[in-house]
């Protein structure tokens, strides 16, 4: 599995032809990043870059190290070794600057059900130092962006799953972050709600040039929305490229992303994850679904 054209390559040392065609600015630079939990290595010497304005999908089976990677990039979890720069700032030495440059939508529900949609945004506009005079206009703009203007004054515990996700996206992009990290943004949503979430994410990218860095289990999401895809397996980068590149890398003939995924992520189950991760995912599905 290791001897193929997209695997095991350091995109900076060994640029793939595709990188030379477009002028790209990396906004997420991951360099040899590792995270160990005792004996277990959740993320193993990960090196990759995501470019400004792209939709970057991180795929892999349960426990492949996707969420651990996102937690390190969002400064929630310090790496065991290695380094990453987000928006030009180091996650290890400049965590506060990184936090100003990013937005984060965790997998679990992260808005407060006992407040209204408006209030949920208001608190974060204050925490992100949006000037007092601009707060109201910015909040209205965000609510409008995710189609929640009419529900602004309802308590969030009356929202549907799709509305909750959209509110979370509005909340985490109030301060116009350069990169928005999303951990399984469409988990537990029905197809219509999923489409709506994606529509708003793409709007965000088009309107503000926000880079989207997301993990997903849904291959069809990756297929239709991600500019580039990285597949992780056992904490390592197994493949990286555009969908087309990944399909080509399997050799002649037509291949689907499903086949690519199975080829790189394997059919064996990854050992990571754990009860808490499973529990979060199930509860999220239950809450949103």
């Amino acid at each position, binding site marked *: 599995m290791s001897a193929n054209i997209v695997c095991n390559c350091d995109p900076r040392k060994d640029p793939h032809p595709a990188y030379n065609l477009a002028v790209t600015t990396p906004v997420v630079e991951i360099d040899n990043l590792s995270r160990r939990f005792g004996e277990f290595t959740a993320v193993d010497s990960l090196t990759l870059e995501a470019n400004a304005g792209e939709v970057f999908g991180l795929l892999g089976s349960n426990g492949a190290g996707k969420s651990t990677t996102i937690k390190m990039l969002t400064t*929630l979890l310090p790496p065991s070794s290695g380094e990453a720069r987000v928006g030009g700032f180091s996650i290890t030495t400049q965590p506060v600057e990184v936090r100003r440059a990013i937005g984060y939508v965790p997998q679990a529900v*992260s*808005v407060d059900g*006992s407040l209204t949609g408006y209030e949920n945004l208001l*608190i974060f506009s204050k*925490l992100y130092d949006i000037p007092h005079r601009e707060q109201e206009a910015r909040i209205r703009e965000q609510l409008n962006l995710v189609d929640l203007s009419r529900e602004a004054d309802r308590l969030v515990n009356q929202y549907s799953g799709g509305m909750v996700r959209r509110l979370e996206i509005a909340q985490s992009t109030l301060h116009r972050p350069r990169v928005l990290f999303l951990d399984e943004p469409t988990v537990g949503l029905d197809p219509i709600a999923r489409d709506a979430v994606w529509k708003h994410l793409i709007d965000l990218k088009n309107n503000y040039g926000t880079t989207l860095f997301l993990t997903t289990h849904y291959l069809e999401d990756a297929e239709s929305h991600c500019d580039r895809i990285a597949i992780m397996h056992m904490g390592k980068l197994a493949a990286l490229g555009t969908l087309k590149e990944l399909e080509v890398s399997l050799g002649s003939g037509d291949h689907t992303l499903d086949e690519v995924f199975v080829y790189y992520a394997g059919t064996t189950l990854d050992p990571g994850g754990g009860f808490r991760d499973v529990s979060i995912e199930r509860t999220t599905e239950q809450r949103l679904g």
Partner: protein
Amino acid sequence: MTDTFIHSLTGFINKTFVITEFELRKLRHDFTELITRALQPALWLLIFGQVFARSGMMHTGNIPYLDFIAPGILAQSVLFVAIFYGINVIWERDLGIVQKFLVSPTPRAALVLGKGFSAGIRTLSQAIVVYGLSLLLGVKLDWSPLALLNVFVVVVLAATLFSTFSLIIACIVKTRERFMGVGQVLTMPLFFASNAIYPTTIMPAWLRVISHLNPLTYVVDALRTSMLAGSTSVFGLGIDYAVILTTTIVLVLIGARLYPQLGV
């Protein structure tokens, strides 16, 4: 240098109050918990207090027993409400709310202190209940503005202290089940090893030593001094405040160190 210091200090205070506001807004939408909380101090004062006052077993000097325990029950109900505050923190962790706050550029200590203050303001309802019951039972209260201000400040600080202590426990145990166990184990010793319902002078020597290490003792002393007309402090209000403030600051600093562990 001083400019950046002042800037970060005002930022810190500002963020602390944003967090407090966030917590209090929730209360505005649902204040049933304030009403249910009022029951416990009522039971202690009306039943326990009345019975022990009639028994004449407690020697509380020149103040009647009911007067003696009214501030003690206020301190106790503040403790009981604040000590389970950590359960909310664990709940917020099981959702993604803690992570969301931690990914924002808010100082960790502001997150911890802001939550503590909100617990403080929530427990003010307990003070109102205890004052109401005390009036009913004929406790001789000190209604001077300074006394009321002292009670206000001490209640808010005490709730901040114990809710931050509770947050620290939550950061360590991380699950609701373990938290409930630890919470139960801690409240009663804190309550009984204090001067809340009996004076420390009737305690055995070893317990008296422990009670003097217990911040609740100083909370009760400060409340008793301020609430009751003609009551004198055992330690002096200055010492009470010094102990309460120092403990709170130390706990907030520890909490700020531990809180990020909930984001993992």
